[in-house]
């Protein structure tokens, strides 16, 4: 059923490419398998067409998506991002998440916040939160608690660290399970990272120098082969920088 997809796994695809689904005929009792289309694929009637250029990826049994390079973030429900509080207005904060529109963040959407007990959030603060509403027709809404009302690592953060932007592809490379990049970073020195899926990364280490090294490493890792990167990391570990 997914034959047209399976031929192209790992190959580059372009917007406009069309995959056809060979649906089993209604007389055939075999039940049609579900197809999960990830980012970069869209349904077009009975076909699936490509709407981003990149490499077609597959996760068994039936998930397909396009691995693409881009810098523009489009909010998606449930994704955890780093936002910058830009305005306070009444009972909501306006948060810049790098999307086309500012996201709103209710002051009640923090752990332990009540109407009487407001969270201490100032304009300019960094917040790590997830999207509750992310819809192309509506203003995105951010929350800093999970469904149980716990913070679980979300909320206001960022004293003494450094925030910078990388591409969305690098962020995903950092967060995939058993990430090589992350394993190499963990061998260097004590440090902390907050990685938002909107391409913002915040780093902090024991000294300003180390923080800067970390930031430069991550930014240069964007366009390096694995070998080059390993060389550079070894140099840093030896104390060359």
């Amino acid at each position, binding site marked *: 059923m997914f034959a047209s997809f399976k031929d192209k796994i790992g190959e580059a695809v372009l917007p406009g490419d069309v995959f056809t*689904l060979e*649906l089993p005929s209604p007389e055939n009792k075999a039940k*049609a*398998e*579900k*197809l*999960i*289309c*990830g*980012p970069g694929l*869209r*349904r077009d*009637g*009975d076909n*699936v067409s490509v709407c981003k250029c990149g490499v077609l*990826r597959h*996760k068994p049994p039936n*998930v397909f*998506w396009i691995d693409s390079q881009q810098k523009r973030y489009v909010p*998606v*429900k*449930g*994704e*955890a991002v*780093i936002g910058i509080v830009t305005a306070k207005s009444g009972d909501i904060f306006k948060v810049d998440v790098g999307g086309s529109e500012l996201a709103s963040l209710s002051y009640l959407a923090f752990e332990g916040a009540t109407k009487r007990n407001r969270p201490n959030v100032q304009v300019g603060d960094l917040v*790590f939160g997830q999207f509750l509403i992310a819809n192309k027709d509506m203003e995105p809404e951010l929350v800093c608690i999970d469904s149980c009302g716990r913070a*679980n*690592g979300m909320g206001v953060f960022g004293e003494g660290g450094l925030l910078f932007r990388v591409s969305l592809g690098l962020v*995903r490379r950092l*967060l*995939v*399970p058993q990430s090589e990049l*992350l394993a190499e*970073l*963990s061998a*260097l*020195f*004590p*440090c*902390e*990272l*907050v*990685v*938002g*899926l909107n391409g913002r990364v915040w780093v*902090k*280490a*024991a000294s300003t120098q180390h923080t800067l090294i970390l930031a430069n490493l991550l930014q240069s890792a964007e366009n390096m082969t694995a070998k080059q990167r390993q060389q550079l990391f070894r140099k840093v570990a030896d104390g060359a920088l």
Partner: protein
Amino acid sequence: MDLEGAAKLSKNVLRMKFMQRSLDPEAKKQLEEDEKKVISEEHWFLDLPELTAHENVIVMERSFVSCEDLMFGRISFKGFNPEVEKLMAATNKSENTDDDEMSKMDTDITDEDMAMRYANLVGSIKKKFAKKREHASFEDEAPSLEKQAKRTFQKPSD
């Protein structure tokens, strides 16, 4: 006053409950049809092509998180932020070591412990269900209690 104007009542007045009796069946039908029309016009519907046919076959997923199994974005190395490391350990454990936890749960109470516990339980449960007279036989097994327990009635002296 104009008599003709008075005879013609407005539709809204005719629809009221106390006016229903005086209406003739034809006018009643007319009113009901008008009402139906108004309701159906008020309802919105989308003029869409047949997208619903294969809705159950193709599922759209807009996030990379579920496709690539991305981790949560808070990371700390070498004990820089113990709180975050605890969080990382908790989220990673729940993801990849479900089997390990199951085996750990098994070893919590060993088979020997379980057997000992049940062996003791047999005696105490038996005692619980025994009748009063049978209790004595159980107490025989505890000789230290026996001597105290055997008391006879003592006649009071006058």
